[in-house]
């Protein structure tokens, strides 16, 4: 609760601040400060379960340790994102504080869609999350790529909204309670009615769209590629994670009991996502676009959690999200500072900027899922979840093979950085200050730390 209110509040403050703030970098500091407050408030709520505000929610949101842990993970990731990319957000355009405001509104949406307890709040949350993103994507107004991305994102996004609403309608119509409350519409054992099934498929489609699972992923590469890289970083990590928590909670709480009846659908979607994501990433030349595809591939891995829906899955999803966010944010932060986004642009980075190269390597290893990095434990949990679920073991095998493929494209960057020398003039890298380096090191350290002691996060869930 705290988080939702406060984010909305700071969003508004920043929105109006746009008028008053003189210096260009004030919004950033306000945003960072605000986010810290939000984070603290959220953690406090997680600790003593008491929100600051007393509002008649009519049980439309529900705050469990799981949700709140997840939220704090997301907020800390965002904080890291602000710290790493604050200056780059300022570079996007003139309306800096509006961008920050929008990001806060997005976070508000994330807060809602992570804690929703009725389909209404789910719908609102996702919309509040998406609409500001359309704007952020379009924020580089003169850039046609940005326009195109925004248009595609918007059209397909609202299309998926339509699909989702259709689903909700059928769920509502199909359940005997005639309610939108998760608890009321939660299905019991036994074959589910056709209307519910129809609704399920629509909802599944919509959620898959939000987490960019194949075959509903087509917007992802183009949008991520076209959007200003700072915001790509935001969308590819934090939003995706939020989408997954919404997805997970919906399917766990509503359709959990009839899992066998829809598991095959998720198996198909997951398999498709893994294959398409990994395979397509292999051939990309632009790192940015490659990362877009890799985000699809990673989504494929996270889908395994929703496929399995057991304790391992939930715990693992949190870990995976954390690991994935850390690594990707770090990687994007480095990417933003490159002039040349192609893989050749990374040639010889190991010589020019050893520290960047090393940290980037750690991020990439984590994404590949090499032990001692958080990424490994994420994948590990996912595999445990799937194997534990028992059905469709081939999915696990497919997953590990895809992980092997992913090594193929992640390591291309490593090779470029260390083992290849830049033949032409080194594409100069701008604005690498000690603070930035320190932050990168901290991020890398966090990844390693989580890789060795996942309990730092996982134990929270056992409270």
């Amino acid at each position, binding site marked *: 609760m705290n988080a*939702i209110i406060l984010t*909305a509040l700071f*969003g*508004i403050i920043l*929105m109006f601040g746009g008028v008053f703030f003189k210096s260009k970098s004030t919004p950033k500091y306000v945003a960072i400060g605000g986010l810290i407050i939000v984070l603290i408030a959220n953690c406090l709520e997680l600790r003593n379960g008491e929100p600051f505000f007393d*509002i*008649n*929610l*009519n049980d*439309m*949101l529900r705050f469990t340790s799981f949700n709140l842990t997840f939220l704090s993970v997301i907020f800390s990731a965002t904080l890291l994102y602000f710290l790493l990319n604050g200056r780059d957000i300022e570079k996007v*355009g*003139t*309306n800096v504080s*509006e961008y920050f*405001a*929008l990001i806060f*509104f997005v976070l*508000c*949406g994330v807060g*809602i869609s992570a804690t929703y307890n009725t389909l*209404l*709040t789910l719908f*609102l949350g996702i*919309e*509040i999350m998406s*609409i*500001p993103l*359309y*704007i952020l994507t*379009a*924020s580089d*107004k*003169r850039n046609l790529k940005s326009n195109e991305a925004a248009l595609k994102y918007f059209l397909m996004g609202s299309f998926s909204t339509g699909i989702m609403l259709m689903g909700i309608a059928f769920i509502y*119509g*199909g359940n005997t309670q005639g309610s939108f409350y998760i608890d009321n519409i939660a299905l019991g054992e036994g074959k589910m*009615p*056709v*209307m519910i*099934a*129809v609704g399920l498929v629509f909802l599944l489609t919509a959620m898959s769209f939000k987490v960019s699972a194949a075959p509903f992923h087509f917007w992802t590469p183009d949008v991520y590629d076209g959007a200003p890289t700072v915001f790509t970083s935001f969308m590819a990590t934090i939003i995706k994670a939020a989408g997954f928590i919404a997805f997970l909670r919906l399917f766990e709480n509503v359709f959990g009991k009839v899992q066998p009846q829809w598991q095959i659908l998720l198996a198909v979607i997951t398999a498709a996502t893994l294959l398409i994501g990994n395979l397509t990433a292999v051939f990309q030349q632009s790192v940015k676009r490659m990362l877009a595809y890799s985000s699809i591939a990673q989504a494929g891995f996270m889908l395994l959690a929703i496929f399995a829906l057991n304790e391992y899955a939930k715990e693992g999803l949190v870990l995976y999200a954390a690991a994935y966010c850390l690594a990707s944010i770090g990687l994007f932060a480095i990417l933003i500072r490159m002039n040349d986004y192609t893989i050749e642009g990374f040639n010889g980075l190991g010589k020019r900027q050893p520290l960047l190269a090393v940290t980037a390597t750690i991020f990439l290893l984590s994404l590949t899922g090499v032990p001692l990095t958080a990424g490994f434990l994420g994948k590990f949990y996912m595999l445990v979840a799937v194997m534990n679920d028992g059905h469709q073991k081939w999915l696990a095998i497919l997953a590990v093979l895809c992980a092997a493929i992913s090594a193929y494209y992640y390591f291309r960057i490593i090779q470029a950085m260390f083992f290849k020398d830049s033949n032409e003039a080194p594409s100069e890298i701008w604005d690498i200050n000690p603070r930035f380096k320190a932050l990168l090191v901290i991020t890398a350290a966090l990844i390693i730390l989580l890789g060795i002691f996942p309990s730092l996060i996982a134990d929270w869930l056992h409270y």
Partner: protein
Amino acid sequence: MSLTEIFFWFLSVLALGSAAMVVLSKNPVYSILFLIITFFCITGHYILLNAQFLAIVNLIVYAGAIMVLFLFVVMLMNLNADSEPPQKSKYLWFIGVIAGGSLLIILVAALKESEASYQLTQMNHGNVGLIATLGRTLFTNYVFPFEISSVLFLSAMIGAVVLSKREAVQN
């Protein structure tokens, strides 16, 4: 065949027809007008179902504000039949129609089976749709969503401003 049913069939057919025309008509302005007709029909359905509040809102918000907005934009860009981008290759068109059609068929067929779809709907009486009822609920039980949707509007507003404001010279 009671009056309600007659109305129902009439409105349905009209709605579908005009909806189809929205897709088919070359000229964007016509499309908009057909869409408005469709909305009117839907409003009619609301009235049939005695959902007065929604009927009003639909009329004002949708058929009114939103469609006007559309019309305004189209006029602004003065789009017309010949400025319309040439149609895609025919067979893609077919594929589209077939895909949509089969979706329709599948759903209809599937739902035909379930007994749930033969429950009756309460026509033209029952007081749930009245403004009083809805209003009370909206400001008691639904106060939170109501408030939070303001965030939505704020961001929409920011968006509109940020996107359509002419930038000073790009630095």
